[in-house]
């Protein structure tokens, strides 16, 4: 089911079956173009499949926006080692709740996307890594996998090609960092989810030391329609270099928060005002966190011409990330949001590398005292310095993910931090203010 009303402005491509009765069942899937794309794909060469994906302009929906066809082209197919197809359904980026809907409402679409990946690199095994909190989805996906075996879409000699492909679910157990691809692979191998040094990238040395395709749940779910309707058709839904649609997750101070499927490049202000019914209680917009909590915040005045695709948001010095937007109204306490954000990263940092472990911890300490009213004037620059020192100096992207939003809050809302200090320290001794 969906948990919010759909919007007439949506372009329903990967969510097209969400409202059908028994949408998760294989019968519903088969009655609505199911497994047609995989059938087409097994008649294609790997090169032709990768060319189609490149032409579709599909980019990774997990956060980095890396072109999917290019990623697949990096996987060596002649090493003689087994190869693996891994789905990242460890959805944990704050603000993001789309993979839930994809697995709950259309698990066969995901399985079919993974089949196409499997055929491309002649893999025999795929794993869907699902965060532990999503237990009910593991049950739904397991049921779908069993149905796919019964009908011969998984298992031995698929479509009479002689190719075998098995798919399994694998549960996480609560760790944001396992959304980072190399940490996910460590976790899949039964270890602490500590990131690997790269290169080699997972394409070459991935799961079980073997070549691996690793994509996000939404990325795989977007693949069947590309082979059904054509790469050009898919590319044309979006903007240049940003093909297709995206499940856009909106939360915060709008009248109609929800997950909406919108074409890449949809204007941010139309999303807020038309799809989501504007800011609630007649308030004004203050800020938007555009791509999960790792993305630098946009002030309201920066939002006017923003299009929601990877390149437009990168140009605005933030990112489309995971597609989770948190909309904040004029009454929002930015210091409190910055503190809650860094508390999260401090909690989730694995401690493997020092800039992240110490950086997130010290940022949390400084922001906590600031928020409690014990801040110093020098803290504002200290926060900026601490986060700048983490940026680009950590093993994995978690350090950057903590630094980027912190730098964003402190630079774009410096006046709020200063006002906060003035307000909370009015009663404090003058020496402290001079510090």
């Amino acid at each position: 089911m969906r948990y919010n009303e759909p919007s007439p402005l949506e372009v329903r491509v990967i969510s097209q079956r969400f409202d059908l009765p028994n949408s998760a069942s294989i019968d519903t899937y088969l009655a609505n173009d199911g497994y047609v794309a995989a059938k087409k794909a097994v008649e294609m060469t790997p090169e032709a499949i990768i060319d189609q994906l490149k032409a579709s302009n599909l980019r990774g929906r997990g956060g980095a926006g890396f072109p999917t066809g290019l990623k697949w082209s990096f996987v060596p197919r002649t090493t003689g080692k087994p190869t693996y197809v891994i789905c990242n359904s460890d959805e944990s980026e704050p603000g993001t709740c789309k993979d839930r809907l994809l697995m709950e409402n259309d698990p066969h679409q995901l399985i079919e996307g993974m089949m196409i990946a499997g055929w491309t690199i002649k893999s025999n095994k795929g794993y869907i890594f699902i965060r532990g909190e999503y237990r009910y989805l593991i049950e739904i996906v397991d049921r779908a996998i069993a149905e796919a075996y019964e009908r011969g879409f998984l298992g031995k000699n698929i479509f009479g090609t002689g190719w075998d492909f098995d798919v399994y679910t694998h549960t996480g157990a609560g760790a944001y960092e396992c959304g980072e691809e190399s940490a996910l692979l460590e976790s899949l191998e039964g270890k602490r989810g500590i990131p690997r040094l790269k290169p080699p990238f997972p394409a070459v040395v991935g799961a079980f030391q073997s070549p691996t395709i690793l994509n996000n749940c939404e990325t795989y779910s977007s693949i069947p329609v590309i082979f059904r309707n054509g790469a050009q058709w898919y590319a044309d839904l979006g903007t240049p270099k940003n093909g297709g649609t995206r499940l856009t997750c909106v939360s915060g101070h709008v009248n109609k928060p929800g997950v909406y499927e919108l074409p890449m490049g949809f204007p941010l202000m139309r999303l807020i005002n038309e799809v989501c019914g504007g800011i609630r209680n007649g308030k004004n917009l203050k800020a938007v966190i555009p791509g999960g909590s790792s993305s630098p915040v946009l002030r309201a005045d920066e939002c006017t011409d923003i299009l929601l695709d990877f390149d437009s948001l990168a140009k605005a010095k933030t990112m489309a990330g995971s597609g989770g937007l948190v909309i904040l109204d004029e009454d929002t306490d930015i210091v409190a949001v910055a503190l809650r954000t860094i508390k999260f990263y401090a909690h989730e940092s694995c401690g493997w590398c020092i800039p992240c472990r110490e950086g997130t911890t010290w940022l949390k300490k400084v922001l906590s005292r600031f928020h409690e009213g014990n801040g110093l004037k020098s803290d504002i620059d200290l926060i900026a310095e601490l986060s700048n020192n983490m940026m680009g100096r950590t093993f994995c992207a978690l350090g950057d993910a903590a630094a980027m939003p912190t730098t964003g809050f402190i630079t774009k809302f410096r006046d709020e931090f200063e006002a906060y200090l003035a307000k909370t320290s009015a009663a404090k001794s003058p020496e402290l203010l001079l510090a």
Partner: protein
Amino acid sequence: MTFSPALEERFAKILSSYPPGRQRSAVVPLLLYAQDEIGYVSQDLVEEVARRCNVTPLQVDEVIGYYSMLHRKPLGKFHVQVCTNIACQAVGGEDLYEHASRSLGLKNKQVSADGLISLEEVECMGACSWAPAIQINYDFHHFVTPERFDQLIRALQDGTYRKAS
């Protein structure tokens, strides 16, 4: 250790799903599913999982502290998890957690004296667009007001609680 037939069946399926010699992969899933049945990760369970996955107890032990869902002590029969991350925070998640803590008389990760309810302030659970959200064990509850929260707790206490979706 003995587990229920259903759990044994699941274990067999999980252990057979990884490539030959890669049974270590099953460590975290086995711990989590077993914890659901026996209530927590006991030392016996650590040793049992180590034996079944053909790794040392230390290799099992070292993952437990990393994963926030694995617990070395029993939780309440109903583990109430309140999200306060930014999407929930924006619409009252922190107030909801405060309300929960006050009304249950429990601090973070504490268990009620009768063992029925435990409380935890958790990170983003993937319900951002339907916030504020809580999970009771594995069940999601969306758009939870303090009043709705109290209703759910009463249902847990008088045995009438049913899954939301």
